[in-house]
């Protein structure tokens, strides 16, 4: 076999390899990262433990829960986030990405409260496939006190991570 014949055989192999390499390297540019940013709220109650003489937090299951957003004009949003949901101990609420404040109306076991959150927004680029997301950092939280007795911010950074941000207490 002459050099050229051997050489052309090599070329055939290279073309096959190229074909494989091409199909191996194409991706479909689909986003595979988590993009959902929501405020995670847990419901808790407090009991006094007489043996240790300390207050102990425990998770509270709310019998019936309805949550609706309140827009900047004070009107209720058309779409309901939680509609008479039963036995809920934690919720995930979307914050307004183009505002520094979000308000929610909560009906917890037939008692009505308004929850207000003030926060700063951060723009974060993820990738070419996924684009950008907006994360938040809580500045202040306050609420009316019909069902809600107190609030605790446990993690002020609201990101795509499944970490509890806010605790609502009902004694």
């Amino acid at each position: 076999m002459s050099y050229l014949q051997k050489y052309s055989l090599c070329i055939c192999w290279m073309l096959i390899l190229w074909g494989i390499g091409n199909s191996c390297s194409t991706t479909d540019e689909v986003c595979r990262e988590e993009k959902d940013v929501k405020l995670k709220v847990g419901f808790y109650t407090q009991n006094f433990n007489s043996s240790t003489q300390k207050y102990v937090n425990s998770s509270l299951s709310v019998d019936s829960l309805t949550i609706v957003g309140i827009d900047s004009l004070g009107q209720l949003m058309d779409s309901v986030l939680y509609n008479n949901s039963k036995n809920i101990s934690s919720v995930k609420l979307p914050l307004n990405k183009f505002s520094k404040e979000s308000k929610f109306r909560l009906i917890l076991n037939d008692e009505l409260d308004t929850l207000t959150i003030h926060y700063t927004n951060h723009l974060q680029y993820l990738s070419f496939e996924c684009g950008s997301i907006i994360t938040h950092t809580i500045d202040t939280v306050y609420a009316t006190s019909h069902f809600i007795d107190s609030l605790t911010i446990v993690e002020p950074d609201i990101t795509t991570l499944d970490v509890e941000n806010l605790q609502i207490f009902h004694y």
Partner: protein
Amino acid sequence: MLKICKYFIISFLIFFFGYINVFSQNKKENLPKIKWWNGIMLNFDVFSPIQSSLSSSQNFSAVGNVQINLKDIFLPVYEIGIDGINKTSSQEIYYKANGIYQRAGIDFNLLRQKKEAEPNNNKLLGGIRVGWSNFKYDVTNITITNDYWGGESTLNYERQSALKVWYEIVFGIQVEVFKNVYLGWNIRSKNLFKQNTSTEVSPWYIPGFGKNNTSNVGFNYTVGYHF
């Protein structure tokens, strides 16, 4: 899927090494004396222009090199090329990049002349390169939607610039088909050096390197002339 690719490439290289043994039987008697300065070769890759023309997203891409032949064993090389891309993601985001890239390195001729055959100028090359590209890129039409509260915003990051540096391990052949005219091909493993990403928006595709992964595989088919 990536594992299958790696197996294919490794098994091909093993095949190829066995095949190449046919080329070189190492008998060291009566080899002709080879000069240190053995000329310069100019090579041009024909694979990149063809592949980029067939690709829907890649802009016209071309690369050529200058290679110095020292004693037919050491072949320092300098390469320069252009590359670019215009790509749309599944979320309708646009990525555009264009730039020049350069590579410098050295190849080693792994082929030894057969005693009985007439001396030839064919080469089996293995080598290393350092590559770099200073380029500009745009990432545009990024939309952010306020799913529950309503509203939408569009972001554009334009005229971002980056400098990326990588190293390559190259393997290939060069065969003299006519007097001083060579055809060849090479396959390369490209690997990025670790860098601090100071820009907020990282580049998705790097001219001359490919997608912004830790490593990529490249292929060239070269036509060259030896002076």
